[in-house]
């Protein structure tokens, strides 16, 4: 190593820079260890124990994991969660993309800001408030949806007590609440599509659909991919609105989600070991699906 005249390189300086780096990283690292890594390791340990939170734990080997194979309610919760998550991803990606396309074409800047704010606004409302709001809107006796459906001769279903309608209703409410986030991501992605490429495509004689399919969507694919991954991870952990609107899994467990089931087992049945095993299953599923999404992305996500 050569050193320019007057330049000082000392191990003290390198060490100093190292400590600065550690100092900057340490708050985040500490929070990660306390709130993510610590509980994660604890969940792994607990999944091999039987523990009711009030008396000492007992080693249970792989008993909690084998129990999952014969747990019909767990399968039901998993099925509901996958239905919810897949529906959520599809409706969010399509809805968010179309809304972004529409808003991006608005000529009036003021109107554009107004629509953006309006679409994003529900996302900043707490889930508890959203859940109660929709309980009013879809009330089977007094709800405004019930009323207006009645006005046009349609008998409103009992949205939250009918097992056929409870999950679709939750999917729709979730969409209303969180579509603003997907929309903003899509809009940001859309605005990074170079205008000259679209102009070039049009000059080559492409119609609107061809521009969208052959230029816009391919260039938007990294954004769509990101939105898909984030939406799936969020949807798979759905808990608050389902618990508030249809407590304990709703009619005939129609809205029982996997995180809700985990909560029931851990904090109502006091089967903390089993709940920990279920939480690891949730983690494994989310990791596997995300890995699958990354693998599939190689085939369709545009890379620069």
């Amino acid at each position, binding site marked *: 190593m050569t050193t320019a005249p007057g330049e000082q390189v000392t191990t003290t300086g390198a060490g100093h820079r190292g400590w600065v780096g550690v100092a900057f990283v340490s708050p985040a690292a500490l929070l990660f260890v306390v709130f993510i890594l610590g*509980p994660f390791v604890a969940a792994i340990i607990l999944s091999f124990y039987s523990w*009711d939170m009030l*008396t000492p734990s007992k080693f249970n080997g792989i008993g909690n994991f084998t129990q999952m194979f014969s747990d019909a309610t767990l399968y039901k919760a998993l099925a509901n969660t996958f239905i919810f998550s897949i529906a959520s991803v599809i409706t969010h990606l399509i809805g968010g993309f179309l809304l972004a396309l529409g808003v991006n074409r608005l000529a009036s800047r003021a109107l554009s800001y107004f629509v953006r704010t309006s679409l994003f606004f529900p996302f900043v409302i707490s889930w508890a408030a959203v859940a109660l709001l929709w309980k009013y809107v879809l009330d089977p006796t007094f709800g405004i949806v019930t009323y207006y459906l009645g006005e046009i001769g349609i008998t409103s279903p009992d949205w939250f007590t009918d097992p056929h309608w409870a999950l679709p209703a939750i999917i729709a409410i979730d969409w209303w609440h969180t579509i603003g986030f997907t929309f903003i991501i899509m809009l940001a992605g859309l605005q990074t599509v170079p205008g000259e490429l679209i102009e070039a495509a049009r000059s080559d004689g492409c119609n609107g659909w061809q521009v969208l399919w052959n230029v816009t969507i391919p260039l938007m694919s990294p954004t769509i991919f990101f939105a898909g991954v984030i939406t799936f991870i969020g949807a798979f952990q759905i808990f608050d609105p389902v618990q508030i609107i249809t407590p304990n899994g709703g*009619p*005939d467990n129609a809205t029982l989600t996997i995180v809700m089931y985990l909560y029931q087992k851990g*904090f*109502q049945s006091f089967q*903390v070991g089993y709940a920990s095993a279920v939480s690891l299953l949730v983690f494994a599923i989310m990791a596997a699906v995300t890995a699958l999404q990354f693998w599939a992305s190689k085939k369709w996500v545009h890379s620069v």
Partner: protein
Amino acid sequence: MTDKKSESPSRPSRRSVLQFLGAGAAVPAMSSLAACGGGSSGGPEAAGKGELSLVYLGDATQQKAFNQLFDAFNKAHPDIKIKANGIAAKDWGSFANTVSTQIAGGKIPDIVDVATEGQQLFSSKGLLEPLDSYIKKDRSVTDAFYAGIDPHLKEWTTKYGSPDGRTYFIPGGYNTVVMYCNTEVFSKAGVDLPAPDWSWDEFEKAAKQIKEKTGAYMLGIGYGFPFVDIMPWLLTNGASTMDADWKKATFDTPEAIEAATFVKKLLDAGYSPKPGGSFDAPSAYAKGKLATLGGGRWPTLDIRRLKMVDKTHIVNWPKNKENGSPVGWDGWPILKASKKKDMAWTFLKWLMSKEAGEFYASIGGTNVPALTSVAQSKVFTKDAPKGSELLSKAVSYGAPIPSPAKGAEVQTAVTKAWQAALTGTSSVEAALKKANTHIQGLL
């Protein structure tokens, strides 16, 4: 000192979100808990000076009343301060979950206010200090207290709250279930106010006439809160969810099926808004759109707030076969791990006094005072609807709200079945039979 949290009688809100995602990290603390409890002296010590930690269930309004109660205790015992932690859980199941989680995390209070729903759970885990030696030592106080309460309370506290015959709880206030009638709605519909003991048929006839004449609903029928939504109908038909020993599920008996069928009939006839929505029963009651409210003592607080005391008359729950009401009561234990058992006992002794019962009743307590003399005194009936004395009388024919150790799971099974039966998701018989099998597996 509450038995049921103040909430909409027909629409209790439900459980909260995860309390501690990382509760698992508390394993070491938990494993050492039994050892902590081993240091019990097993008997009374000289009362000391210091701070007692106490956990109870209560929302903001109830916390205000509890704090007044603790202040009153502090005036009588200036050396002992109560550091109270009011948990605004939505029901006793959530409260038990929260307290259990706190205990698991090593935060062990000296005293916990445990409702019937949690008594077997707490005592069966070996967390509580036997109180027999304390009771024996202070006979002058305890004998007078036990002589002054309904004998059922003592009997049930031992029968259901003790796995080994020893005493772990001092019974506190209790709740039964009665029906609050809106006299204006009855009058407007030309329906005579019911006698205290009225029948299902009379109830149905009144509902029909009130609906036709005023458009008001008779009752907010629900399924999420068994204490009011389910148990009164079962018990007034000689049924229950399980037998008196809480060992055998009885949710599919012909009487239980008949009760659920009757409630479904009321719902189908439109005498109640459809469940599952956002119906605000107290508000509708005040506006003359609801004829009755079901509940224990706690609706009295709503009735006062809505200035409906003079327009309300309390009667028993209508019956088909016999009078019936669930009974839930507070149990006050001392935790085995407490290092201030003597001070804790001083507080429990004070709670047993007439002075404490009267004080709590006067500041708007949400239950019926344990001492019968207080429950039937003017302190309790003042600024309360006519017929309030029926609340304490109901304990004589009532039955303890079934609360086995796996109470939360049983409750979920019961409410789901009642929901399915009422909303027609399943036939009444099929729903109750399926739940009965499930419940039996939990007992």
